[in-house]
């Protein structure tokens, strides 16, 4: 190609990214939008634009129920994961001698496939699972606990375990970046350890916390493997319904509509979260 002007050069340089984003993000999204305005007619697709799918999605109580539940489960997973990850990240960043070793240990779950890990949780939490057998053997219970598996609890636990490294790493980085003399300055100005943490460490690690929350919350809302394997009927989420539309129910237009609505809801919740978290951070003085 003959790169004569700056403009042409710019276009040429950004071409790979443009093509990539165009094909892998914009095009699928446009197809999704198009599908959501079409209608499934038994075996065929009626391509007359209509908002009927949206009307159905908004009026069906099941959709609303699953959407809210998905967001609540994802929020619970996020809160649990980040709350557990923070002390771990803090320990590694501040106290640990062999930081690299600790970080390596934290990634160990990734060395096996996610499906295997979900099945492992089934083995642990199940009716004849490791936990129940152990408790029975110890004589702590007389019959196996049934509330361990096939409910929201199992979904939250499994996802929290799976996402832990994604929460630990950004928080670790943000704690690591804090200049230790800032904490000494806080102490020098009369802060106790807890006050220094709340007034200096916490606001300075807020970007890490927000990043961790988004990284966990966004994909978790749309997760469908975990609820279908350990969620039972109580633990089903919006993605399970979407999967049914594209599969057994064979209603792609409705599936596309639900997908778009799920994306919009996640985006909305994420934006509100980021704004309020930042606002909260600015009020710490």
């Amino acid at each position, binding site marked *: 190609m003959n790169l004569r002007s700056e403009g042409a050069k710019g276009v040429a340089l950004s071409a790979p990214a443009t093509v990539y984003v165009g094909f892998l993000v914009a095009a699928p999204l446009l197809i999704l939008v198009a599908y959501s305005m079409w209608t499934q007619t038994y075996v065929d697709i009626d391509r007359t634009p209509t908002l009927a799918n949206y009307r159905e999605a908004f009026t069906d109580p099941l959709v609303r129920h699953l959407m809210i539940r998905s967001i609540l489960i994802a929020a619970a997973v996020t809160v649990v994961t980040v709350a557990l990850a923070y002390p771990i990240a803090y320990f590694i960043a501040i106290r640990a001698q062999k930081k690299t070793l600790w970080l390596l240990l934290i990634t160990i779950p990734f060395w096996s496939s996610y499906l295997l890990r979900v099945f492992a949780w089934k083995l642990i939490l199940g009716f004849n699972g490791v936990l129940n057998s152990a408790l029975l053997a110890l004589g702590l219970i007389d019959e196996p606990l049934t509330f361990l598996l096939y409910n929201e609890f199992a979904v939250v636990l499994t996802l929290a375990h799976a996402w832990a490294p994604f929460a630990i790493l950004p928080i670790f980085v943000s704690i690591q970046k804090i200049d230790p003399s800032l904490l000494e300055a806080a102490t*020098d100005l009369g802060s106790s350890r807890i006050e220094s943490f709340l007034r200096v460490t916490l606001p300075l690690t807020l970007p890490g916390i927000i990043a961790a929350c988004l990284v966990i919350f966004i994909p978790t809302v749309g997760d469908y493997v975990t609820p279908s394997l350990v969620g039972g009927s109580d633990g089903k989420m919006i993605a399970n319904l979407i999967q049914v539309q594209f599969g057994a129910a064979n209603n792609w237009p409705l599936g596309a509509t639900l997908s778009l609505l799920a994306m919009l809801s996640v985006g909305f919740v994420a934006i509100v979260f980021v704004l309020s978290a930042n606002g909260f951070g600015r009020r710490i003085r």
Partner: protein
Amino acid sequence: MTETNIIEMTGVEKRFGTFTAVSDLSLSLREGEFFSLLGPSGCGKTTALRMIAGFQEPTDGRVTIDGQDMQGIAANKRPTNMVFQSYAIFPHLDVGDNVAYGLRNRGLKKAEIENRVSEALEMVELGGLQRRRANELSGGQRQRVALARALVMRPKVLLLDEPLSALDKKLREQMQFEMRRLQRNLGITFVMVTHDQYEAMTMSDRIGVMFDGKLVQVDSPETLYAKPCNREVASFIGEMNFLPAQVSARQENSLTVTTTCFENLKIETNPNVRQGYGDILVGIRPEQIEIAAKQPDGYDATFRGDVVNVAFYGENVHYHVRVEGLDRPVSASVPNYFHMVDFREGDSVWLGVQSASVIDLGENEPS
């Protein structure tokens, strides 16, 4: 100045593993003085300061502030505040909130906090910059914020760890002057750590000189310069020509000495050095040596030499003069009177000194 001691350090020692960073440090600081700990980098100054602040516990010895033993008293409970070398300005807070940080810990009323913050900012000439964010400040402004943030707490002692080392020369000189003025006006005891002898001399009432974890001399800048306690101090503070000297007579307050450059010169004894019986070392500051083309009149001692090097500093000129029988050339510094450099390399010159300029540095220990 009152003679009460605001800080007493007795036999303070700090070891890190087997390494001794500070050893047997005893020091009394007077209330309201500007004290500097001066020494080369790594000699343990910061460690000493941090033991006063409470960031480090002494391995041995005792630190008392205002009569109260500091053993076991945490840094956040001590009546000291610190200006950190890196300034440690909180990046998530604006200038006003940085300065208010410590006052909020004390649970003061909002109006009082605001008053004291703006008063402190006026004091360091940052009035009205309350809402500036930390990353919008220049180096000099950050230094002032750090100063205001510590002073607003009205500490009994302000600790400063190389507070000016990050600033460029012009700004540094201006801040030296301002900090000195501030200290005088507030009457708060300042303890500053620095490796810059000029900074220490221009700002301090007294200076403690440290080498290798040991405090070797504590005196006023003038005394340190005129009566250093040994060769190390003499060469660390200012420049010094060293001459080995034979002592031919010892009187109560004077010695009669002979060197390569002069014979039987009667000089004052230096009360700060250990007096022995053998040969001694004497020192002469370069600016105390006269340089002339002909043998100068009115000097207690004169001798000849050849100029081997000329360095022009602007305000003065340094001549290095080779003198028969000395390993190192003698350095003489003369003010730049009429923008003239009087001598060139290779010129034969006369040097003259007064006996009052010849400093007794005690026994000549092989160094």
